[in-house]
C-alpha cells in the first residue's frame, strides 16, 4: 500500500465514522419518537386525547429523520463509488454538495455552520474522482480550523474562464489574515499536496476570509 492509498483509507475511515455517528443519532431520534407513539397509543382514551399533538409531531419527526438518513446515505454511496474510476468526468458541484453533507458533523463539533451554495451552472472537470473528494474534504477541514466559533462557511463550485473552481468563504466579517493564520500549517500542506496530485492550485484569498482551489 503506497502513501496515497494509506491517506485514502484514512479519509474514508474518517468520513464513514462521521456518517455512522450521524446515522446513530437519526436512529436514536426515530427509536424515541416511535417509543413515544407506542406510549401514547397504549394510554386510555381520555389521556391519549391530550397527547394527539405529540403523536402528530412524533410522526413528523420520524419522516424528517428518514429523509435526513436517506440523504446522508445517498452522499456516502456517491463517495463510495468515487474510486470506481481512476480518471474521468467529475461534477464538481455534486462532489462539493456530497462533501459538505458528509462534513456536517465536523462543523457542528466546532460550532460552525457549513453550507453548500448552488453553482450558477454545471461544473464538469476531467480529473481523478477520489482525489477530488479528498481535496474538497481537506479544503473544508482547513477552513473549519480557520473560522471562529459561531460563524458560517459557504462552499461553492464555479467555472470562471472555463476552469473548475471551488471556493470556501467565511460568511461573517472577520479579517482574512486572522482566518488564514488560524489554519494549521499541516492542514494547508495536506490540501496543497492533494492539489498537486491533480494539477490544481489552492490560494488563500487576500480580500476575503476564504480559500479557492482552481483546477486545470
Amino acid at each position, binding site marked *: 500500500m503506497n502513501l496515497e492509498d494509506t491517506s485514502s483509507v484514512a479519509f474514508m475511515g474518517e468520513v464513514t*465514522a462521521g456518517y*455512522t*455517528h450521524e446515522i*446513530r*443519532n437519526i*436512529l*436514536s*431520534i*426515530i*427509536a*424515541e*419518537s416511535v*417509543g*413515544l407513539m407506542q*406510549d401514547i397509543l397504549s394510554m386510555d382514551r381520555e389521556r391519549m386525547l391530550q397527547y394527539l399533538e*405529540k403523536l402528530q409531531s*412524533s410522526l413528523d*419527526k420520524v419522516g*424528517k*429523520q428518514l429523509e435526513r438518513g436517506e440523504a446522508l446515505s445517498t452522499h456516502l454511496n456517491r463517495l463510495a463509488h468515487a474510486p470506481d474510476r481512476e480518471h474521468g468526468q467529475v461534477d464538481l458541484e455534486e462532489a462539493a454538495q456530497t462533501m459538505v453533507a458528509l462534513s456536517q458533523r465536523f462543523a*457542528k*463539533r*466546532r*460550532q460552525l455552520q457549513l453550507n453548500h451554495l448552488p453553482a450558477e451552472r454545471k461544473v464538469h472537470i476531467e480529473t481523478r474522482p477520489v482525489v477530488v473528494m479528498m481535496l474538497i474534504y481537506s479544503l473544508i477541514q482547513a477552513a473549519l480550523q480557520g473560522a471562529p466559533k459561531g460563524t458560517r462557511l459557504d462552499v461553492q463550485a464555479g467555472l470562471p474562464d472555463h476552469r473548475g473552481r471551488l471556493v470556501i468563504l467565511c460568511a461573517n466579517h472577520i479579517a482574512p489574515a486572522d482566518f488564514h493564520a488560524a489554519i494549521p500549517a499541516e492542514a494547508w500542506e495536506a490540501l496543497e499536496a492533494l492539489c498537486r496530485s491533480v494539477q490544481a492550485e489552492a490560494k488563500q484569498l487576500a480580500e476575503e476570509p476564504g480559500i479557492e482551489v482552481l483546477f486545470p
Partner: protein
Amino acid sequence: MSGVKVLLVDDEQEFTSALSERLEIRGHAVRVADSGEEALEIAEAEPPEVVVLDLKMPGLSGIEVLKRLKSMLPQVPVLLLTGYGSTEEGIKGMQLGAFDYLLKPLNITDLIKKMQEAVGGSQ
C-alpha cells in the same frame, strides 16, 4: 415507586424532546440541556438526582462536562450515552467517576433501571 429528578444532556434536540416526554409519562421529572455549558448552569442552580449525558457534543465535550460535574456535585451520579465504536470513551468516563454508560439507540427500560440503580435503588 416515585420518579427521579433527571438532567438530560444532548445536543440532538429532537432526541431529548422525545426521550424527556417518555420519561415524564413514566413519572420522572426531566430538565433538558442542549450543551455542556447549559448543563453545568442547570446542575448548579438545581442539582438533579442523576445526569444522563451524551459524550459527543459540540463545544464542551461530554468528558469535560463529566469532570466539571464531578468536581461541582460529586454525589450526583452520571450516566453516559455513547455509540458503538465509542465504548472506549465510556470506559474512560467510568474511570473519571461516571456511574455507567449506555449505548445509543437506547432501551428506555434499561435507562430507567440504570437511573434507579444510580440513585441508590431507593426510588
